[in-house]
């Protein structure tokens, strides 16, 4: 009878458990956009040689098309933005070995030159972004590299004539000229200039009439001079010998070829001795006489500015006093002068840009007025380049220099509004793109987020009404009583929230969180909502709401200008959590260039995560935080110390300078004493790269230095082979560990080798030295180094690695995962390190200076996709299985189940022990399940770093992927959502059942008692 009852209760337990844990496997479509967000970015614009261009995408039904902004970015992206709302119309990212050089637009055609020497040519459709064709003129191995990369490359659409198909001529590799059909990319002709080589460098071309005129440089003993060449446009036969132009050229960009009013002719202009010189090339290739462009003007010119309208015969000439003239090359005269463009302390330096209109050009100048603290734009509209009619206009605009820095480019729209004012798209020095109109500042794209140097999740505190405050030890009884009485006002709110949470909480409702703002900074019930602090390379900090990507605050750490940023962020750490009502704090380490660009110092800041305020003094002039200057030079390494600052209760940061000495931030005597105490068990390592040898060096802090800090004492050194290139250098992820071993089928234990000091270094040794080829093979090596004693704990060698693929590594606890590309495809390796012992495991409590034998179990698999980055999921207590996260070849983020990557998968027939352990028999191929794609519909372009953070519930892991695009998800549950009730769970029914049962007990209890009593009588 007892057995039966127990059995029943067991059944009940089983049922209830299986009921509760109705596991959600895979990501469901309805969770897309709820559990994650994706911010597509393009990167910061490249301004040379083709800055972003505002064009109108022609539409058949309207004359005025929609505005589009085409540009190339430093992230190797060709992007087209919608000018109305700033959204990305389309974009393409190219491989690192194929750098973008320039783009050329005509109607719906976007021609892109890329690769070294511009040897790869692609044609895109402006409206759809689809690739029409792609041609490689020379194999990328043979392509000539020039510095800058765009030197010696050019492309021009051949003016279409009646009855002829559209063509384009392209100059690549500073010597080869080719002509393509636009419709299908058919090569019509291609010719390498016979004389060109090391001394002759072709730079620009212009097709006109029946000729293609080419401008080149001739390097001679005396210096560079100009040289022209003319080809027949239909046959490619040179029409004449090289035209030697008597000239001296100092900077290649100070000479250009422009069109003339006469079809078939071209003009070459350059600066020589402060004068603008001009020469005419006739259609047959004959060169005229050198003339002064503006003979009677006595003013000296400093430079020629090409704003991309030279094919319309318009250039800008900058005079020695800074004023800029608009010069028509074809008419050989000055058309206009930009008003008040001479250098003045009242204005910033001007930025010039231009765009072609149907028959004319629009030129634009923007500058910052220091007096009025506004931006000013001046526009010169030349409706027809053959006449000298011009319309000038201008406006001022409000612009947030504090947030965006200075503007470094302004793309001007090819149409003007009824007030003759253009729409501008500003590119700013700290990476933002902003649309600007008169009285109407438009959208802003924060493209600096494409270059995040460091990011951290910051846990938020509980809502105030539910906050458990720290017990105040010094509080008296009366004080506490009165405090509690005051806090009673929060009771109704608390009760309401509790009842709401108790009755209505489910998985979906838990995912729908209130967006954060500066006044509402609380976490949700399950800790899915956090603050995401991102530090971009140029020193702009952002706090993003992890649930929707909205920026809570942003702040600049330093000044940025066209020349770059004075701040270069190195890394960032969480130094204080938000427990007990205090505000979480982060430490930021950066290098700062002094104003005169001579000295580089390492600076550290303390950042309040809730408000974005930087602790400490601010610059009296620009109100930027000064931070704490630690030392001169760059830091080699930095890490947190296991000490807290006495005042701020923030963890103390140790920073290693270039001479391997240790500095602490914030400086504190107590901490220094603490370091001295543990100096023989505090280790740090740096990678020192020498000319002939690279080595990893380990140090301990020794003698205290004057003025704080410690001298580093070298205790070990690990040389890396001279021919080995270090690819990646990653630390082991060592968070909360729930299990110290793996239980085998016979219930014995394989104890994990747990060592929190491990560093993983991957290297590549090319098989042939000195050959820079894209498809280079070689040997890859992976070292796992104990950074306390410099021992190589584990080492593996991979033969036949293709360099193009690189080697990606990652290690968590005792599990090392690495991927590479070999001859046949992508491979992934998995290694687990175990203690080689029969008795109890000793790591990690044992000192790493005591010997531990290691047993490494390895296995490798075939992956059907590229691996661009490796990361791991994490969880609060470390109980949930850890999965590998990868960025695959389709720019998706996918997870690979741990069980598939288990190196202990049996290769033969699985034994009963293997079955007991539920090991899957080995199969070489790891299939990529579409269910395991975390980023589902999004393409997370350029993701390089996968940062994970644990939610409050054990099952769930948060992920932040960054690199170019940003992607955050809180839907990674490697073992299912076992600790969250699913939506199917009928809470009301459960409550009703419980209520009914209670009522039944209340009613039936007395009756049963009465009956029992009655039974006793008889």
């Amino acid at each position, binding site marked *: 009878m*007892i*057995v*039966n009852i*127990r*059995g029943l209760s*067991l*059944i009940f337990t*089983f049922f209830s458990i299986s009921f509760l844990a109705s596991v959600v496997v895979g990501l469901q479509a309805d969770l897309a956009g709820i559990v994650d967000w994706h911010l597509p970015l393009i990167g910061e614009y490249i301004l040379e040689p083709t800055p972003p261009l505002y064009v109108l995408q022609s539409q058949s039904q309207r004359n005025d098309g929609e505005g589009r902004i085409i540009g190339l970015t430093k992230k190797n992206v060709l992007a087209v933005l919608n000018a109305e709302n700033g959204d990305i119309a389309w974009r393409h990212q190219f491989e690192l070995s194929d750098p973008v050089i320039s783009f050329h637009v005509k109607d719906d055609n976007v021609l892109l030159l890329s690769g070294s020497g511009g040897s790869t040519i692609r044609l895109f459709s402006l409206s759809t972004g689809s690739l029409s064709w792609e041609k490689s003129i020379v194999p990328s191995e043979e392509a000539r590299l020039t510095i800058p990369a765009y030197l010696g490359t050019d492309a021009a659409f051949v003016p279409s004539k009646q009855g002829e198909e559209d063509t384009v001529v392209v100059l690549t590799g500073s010597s080869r000229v080719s002509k393509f059909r636009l419709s299908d990319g058919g090569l019509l002709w291609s010719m390498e200039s016979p004389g060109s080589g090391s001394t002759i460098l072709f730079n620009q071309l212009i097709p006109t009439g029946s000729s293609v005129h080419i401008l080149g440089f001739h390097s001679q003993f005396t210096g560079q001079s100009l040289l022209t060449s003319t080809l027949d446009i239909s046959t490619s036969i040179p029409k004449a010998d090289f035209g030697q132009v008597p000239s001296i050229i100092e900077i290649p960009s100070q000479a250009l070829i422009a069109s003339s009013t006469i079809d078939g002719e071209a003009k070459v202009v350059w600066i020589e001795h402060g004068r603008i010189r001009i020469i005419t090339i006739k259609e047959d290739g004959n060169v005229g006489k050198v003339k002064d462009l503006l003979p009677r003007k006595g003013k000296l010119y400093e430079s020629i500015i090409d704003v991309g309208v030279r094919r319309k015969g318009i250039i800008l000439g900058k005079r020695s006093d800074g004023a800029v003239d608009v010069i028509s090359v074809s008419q050989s005269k000055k058309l206009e002068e930009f008003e008040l463009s001479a250098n003045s302390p009242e204005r910033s330096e001007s930025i010039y840009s231009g765009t072609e209109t149907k028959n004319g050009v629009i030129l634009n100048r923007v500058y910052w007025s220091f007096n009025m603290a506004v931006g000013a734009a001046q526009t010169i509209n030349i409706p027809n380049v053959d006449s000298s009619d011009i319309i000038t206009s201008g406006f001022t605009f409000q612009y947030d220099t504090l947030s965006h820095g200075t503007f470094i480019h302004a793309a001007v729209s090819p149409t003007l509004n009824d007030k003759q004012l253009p729409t501008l798209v500003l590119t700013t020095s700290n990476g933002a793109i902003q649309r600007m109109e008169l009285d109407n500042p438009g959208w802003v794209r924060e493209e600096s987020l494409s270059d995040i140097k460091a990011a*951290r999740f910051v846990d938020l505190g509980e809502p105030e009404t539910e906050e458990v405050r720290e017990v105040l030890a010094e509080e008296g009884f009366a004080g506490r009583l009165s405090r509690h009485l005051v806090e009673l006002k929060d009771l109704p709110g608390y009760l309401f929230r509790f009842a709401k949470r108790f009755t209505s909480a489910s998985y979906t409702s838990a995912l729908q969180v209130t967006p954060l703002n500066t006044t509402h900074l609380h976490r949700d019930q399950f800790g899915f909502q956090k603050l995401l602090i991102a530090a971009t390379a140029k020193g702009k900090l952002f706090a993003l709401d992890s649930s929707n990507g909205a920026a809570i605050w942003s702040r600049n750490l330093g000044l940025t200008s066209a020349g770059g940023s004075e701040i270069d962020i190195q890394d960032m*750490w*969480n*130094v204080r*959590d938000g427990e007990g009502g205090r505000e979480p704090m982060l430490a930021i380490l950066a290098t700062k260039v002094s104003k005169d660009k001579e000295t580089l110092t390492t600076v550290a800041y303390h950042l309040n995560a809730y408000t974005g305020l930087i602790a400490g003094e601010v610059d009296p002039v620009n109100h930027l935080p000064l931070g704490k200057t630690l030392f001169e030079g760059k830091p080699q*390494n930095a*890490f*947190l*110390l*296991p000490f807290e600052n006495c005042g701020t209760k923030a*963890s103390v940061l*140790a920073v290693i300078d270039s001479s391997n000495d240790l500095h602490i931030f914030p400086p504190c005597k107590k901490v220094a004493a603490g370091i001295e105490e*543990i100096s023989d*068990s*505090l*280790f*740090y*390592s740096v990678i020192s790269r020498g000319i002939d040898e690279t080595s990893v060096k380990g140090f301990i802090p020794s003698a205290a230095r004057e003025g704080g800090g410690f001298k580093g004492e070298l205790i070990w050194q690990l040389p890396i082979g001279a021919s080995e290139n270090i690819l990646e250098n990653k*630390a*082991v*992820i*060592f*968070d909360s560990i729930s*299990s*110290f*071993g793996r*239980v*085998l089928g*016979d*219930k*014995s*234990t394989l104890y994990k080798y*747990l*060592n*929190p*000091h*491990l*560093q993983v270094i991957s290297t590549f040794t090319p098989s042939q030295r000195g050959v820079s080829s894209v498809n280079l093979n070689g040997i890859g090596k992976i070292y796992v180094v104990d*950074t*306390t004693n410099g021992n190589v704990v584990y080492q593996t060698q991979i033969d036949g690695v293709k360099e193009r693929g690189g080697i990606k590594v990652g290690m968590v606890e005792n599990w090392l995962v690495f991927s590479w590309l070999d001859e046949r495809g992508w491979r992934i390796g998995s290694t687990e390190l175990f203690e080689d012992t029969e008795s*109890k*495991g000793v*790591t*990690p*409590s*044992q*000192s*790493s200076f005591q010997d531990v034998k290691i047993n490494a179990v390895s296995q490798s698999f075939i992956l059907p996709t590229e691996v661009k980055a490796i990361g791991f999921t994490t969880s609060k207590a470390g109980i949930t299985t850890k999965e590998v996260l990868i960025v695959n070849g389709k720019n998706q983020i996918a997870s690979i189940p741990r069980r598939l990557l288990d190196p202990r998968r049996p290769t033969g027939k699985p034994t009963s022990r293997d079955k*007991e352990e539920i090991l899957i028999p080995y199969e070489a191929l790891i299939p990529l399940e579409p269910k395991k794609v975390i980023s589902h519909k999004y393409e997370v372009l350029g993701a390089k770093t996968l940062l994970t953070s644990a939610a409050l519930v054990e099952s769930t892991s948060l992920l932040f992927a960054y690199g170019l695009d940003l992607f955050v998800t809180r839907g990674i549950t490697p073992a299912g959502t076992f600790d969250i009730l699913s939506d199917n769970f009928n809470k009301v029914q459960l409550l009703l059942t419980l209520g009914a049962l209670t009522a039944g007990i209340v009613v039936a209890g007395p009756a049963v008692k009465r009956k029992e009593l009655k039974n006793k009588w008889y």
Partner: protein
Amino acid sequence: MTFRLDYTVPQQKNNSIPNPPGYLPPASSKQLSSKSAQIDSDALVKQNKKATELKLRRAWDLALAPAKALPMQAVMLYFSGSGIQIFSLAMIFSLLTGPITAVFSIFRAFESLRPTSTPSSSLKSDEIAEPSYGPLVLPMIAYVACQGLVLALGLYKCSTMGILPSGSGDWLHFETRLDPPEWSAIRSLSLG
């Protein structure tokens, strides 16, 4: 002459109500020693001996009963399979708790089988000894041993099912480790 009131209830000399058939009035020692007690004692001893023998035999039967059921239980266990299911678990539960409860209630189980010890001699037959467990020691030991066999069978089944914490893996989650004694730049990454 004094007059005394007697409040006592007059004692009945003879029981008017007859005893139930087969009821022996409690025999006092006086009665036993007197009269024909001597003649009956032989028969009584004989009867007593017989009862004792019977009880001992019954005790041995009881002691060995679990062992006899053992093969059947083994067969049942074999057929219940080694998977962790509700039926095999219930069987194992009964196999494990049964012997333990049986051993704890061993005295109650053997209570009715206590033999009354025979008077050793007619001379000292004045007192009848209380029934004792003395002669049952051997069957009781056998009983415990047999229940032990049942328990062992249950444990064996547990171990084949893998629910007996016999390996180091079963205790892994109770193992603790100290913090590593050293600090390194890499280890401090877990700080934030």
